[in-house]
């Protein structure tokens, strides 16, 4: 163990032996890249099939607190990028990971984050093949920021995209909504709330495999991250030029999420999720899709929440408890706790 001290200092970003020790002991020791060149060299076999397409995505992760019930920033960083690939119909293969580390960050925390990333990557069947670290002065970052990029392959003939959604298609979510957002609100501590809620953070690659096997004509899927289900549906309605109507009584919500929303005046439709997707399939394939989703652990609570309609194009509406109808708009700014 050449790594000295229990906190990251600016020396760990200086390019010298301290940096080498940090990278070797904390990062490459866990991720085991194939070589020590400054690039990953990958077999292109899977891509070489005629008609296959490369999917490439990137995402940055900042979260406060860095660790929370049900996960940490590492869990988010792997699953977030894996999910961006998976919901587009790609099989995720490789990830890169870049870390901006604040001076003073505990090395033990970095080890825990890296362990989370290794575990989630193994679960998802992806490899973290290249990476980078930078250290910034105190106050220039909030402990650690992580950026992951991901590469996957879309097999020949597969085309999953929001533009394919047609009126009558059925919308299915894979589980209860808003757990992550409500969990983070409580974990931040400044609202002094506590509950047993855990983040829903999870990789959705295997679930998408099951969906695509059961629904050969699946139209499109989105993961419902920032901005929640409402934002995902609005983006999809706009892209497809259809309306979407959801049923208030069909929305799966945990009691604790409802409680958080009632206390703080928030709308669960806008709470963030990190392991939830909404998928549109033709009505004829809806039952098979549901059954297939429920057979996967991340889809155990899958349920139909609504359907695409003739329009107005781009408009998402919700049939309320009493049969009234209201518009579900995009989120404006950030949801702030309100008292009135």
């Amino acid at each position, binding site marked *: 163990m050449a790594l000295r001290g229990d906190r990251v200092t600016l020396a760990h970003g200086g390019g010298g032996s301290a940096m080498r020790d940090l990278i070797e002991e904390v990062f490459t020791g866990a991720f085991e890249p194939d070589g020590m060149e400054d690039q990953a060299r990958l077999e292109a076999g899977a891509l070489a099939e005629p008609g296959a397409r490369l999917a490439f995505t990137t995402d940055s992760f900042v979260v406060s607190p860095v660790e929370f019930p049900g996960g940490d920033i590492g869990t988010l960083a792997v699953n977030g990028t894996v999910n961006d690939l998976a919901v587009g119909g790609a099989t995720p293969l490789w990830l890169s990971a870049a870390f901006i580390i604040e001076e003073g960050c505990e090395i033990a925390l970095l080890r825990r984050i890296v362990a989370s990333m290794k575990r989630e990557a193994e679960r998802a069947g992806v490899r973290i093949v290249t990476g980078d670290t930078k250290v910034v002065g105190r106050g220039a970052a909030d402990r650690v920021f992580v950026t992951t990029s991901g590469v996957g392959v879309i097999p020949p003939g597969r085309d999953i995209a929001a533009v394919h959604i047609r009126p009558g298609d059925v919308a299915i979510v894979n589980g209860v909504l808003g757990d992550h957002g409500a969990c983070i609100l409580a974990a931040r501590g400044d609202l*002094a709330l506590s509950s047993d809620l855990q983040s829903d953070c999870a990789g959705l690659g295997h679930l998408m495999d099951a969906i695509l096997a059961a629904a050969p004509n699946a139209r499109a899927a989105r993961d419902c991250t920032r901005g929640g289900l409402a934002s995902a549906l609005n983006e999809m309605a706009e892209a497809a030029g259809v309306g979407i109507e959801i049923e208030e009584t069909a929305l799966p919500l945990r009691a604790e999420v409802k409680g958080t929303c*009632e206390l703080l005046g928030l709308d669960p439709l806008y709470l963030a999720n990190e392991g939830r997707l909404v998928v549109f399939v033709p009505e004829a394939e809806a039952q098979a899709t549901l059954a297939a989703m429920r057979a996967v652990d991340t889809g155990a609570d899958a349920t139909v929440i609504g359907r695409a309609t003739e329009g107005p194009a781009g408009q998402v509406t919700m049939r309320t408890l*009493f049969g009234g109808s*209201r518009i579900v708009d995009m989120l404006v700014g950030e949801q702030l*706790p*309100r*008292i009135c």
Partner: protein
Amino acid sequence: MRYVEEFRDPGAAKALIARIGEVAEAIGATREQPVRIMEICGGHTHAIFRYGLDRLVHEGIEFIHGPGCPVCVLPMARVDEAVEIAERPGVIFTSFGDAMRVPGTKKSLLQAKAEGADIRTVYSPLDALELARRHPDREVVFFGLGFETTTPSTALTIQQAAREEIGNFTVFCNHITVPQPIKVLLDDPHMLLDGFVGPGHVSMVIGTHPYDFIARDYGKPIVVAGFEPLDLLQSVLMVLEQIRDRRAEVENQYGRVVPEHGNPVSLAAMADVYEPRPSFAWRGLGEIDASGLRIRPGYAGWDAEAKFGIGYGARRAREVAEPEGTRCAAVMTGRIKPTGCGMFGTQCTPETPLGALMVSSEGACAAYWQYGGRRSPEAAE
């Protein structure tokens, strides 16, 4: 959720809606000649839109959205003063989330925060007091906002600060009261109201008698209501029945929470800490006599106006008129619907609110926008 979900039962709602329709027919209410009921409280406005109640009840009932949204009636000058305090060195300025986006003449609290002021959203004034305990070297200021529902919470927090002799905590008091603006609305010759749905959580504190003048002096029915959809529908029915029977009374639909005489501990704390200001400015309504509260001299140590020499305490920010072209006052007094304002949905949207009614989700304009009053199927036809 107990005491919540029972009051959202669709079957009972259907029955209430049918009864409301019958009574509306009986008194001859039509779309052209509607019965106009003002829900005073912004929480009720929010619930009406959230559940689509305005579209479910008989077409002869028109909801007029009242002035009971504290951030909507907060003048820009008060926001300017809040920003000025927040930008002082050493200050931690705390506020409910509602006020963060309200525009001042130059900026909102959210913008001031982005420019470097230490402004934090809290859930409770007690959390602001806790911040003061944890940061004895900083000056923690709480933006005291709200009607009688919220006023006891800041009064009790100030009493607690006084008991513990916490010297680095103050309240920037902008508390306002419900009865006075109602009187102003009733005295307005343009105002044509047939009855009121009264604010249940305000009455939980002050009881039902402060509204006696509405029935006695103005001959209008008022029913104090809870906030679940069945509460609101039942209250509308009770108002209609009063109109049908030619009664004008103060009735209490929300008996499970509202005692006739209010809450004695809350009332005592308010009386101990606060006194009426001679007058207070309301956005859209102007200065209203005795409609605002200030901290009594005995608690001056916890009064941000006194400590910072700002606001009604001393140097007041310049009062400004409404942004050009907006008709906030007309909307707030029920003379026009939000859609009757030329700025609605064009220059004034939730992303770029010009008027305060677009800022808070309780504001009539934001509720109209969010829940589709403008783009409703009916409106589109």
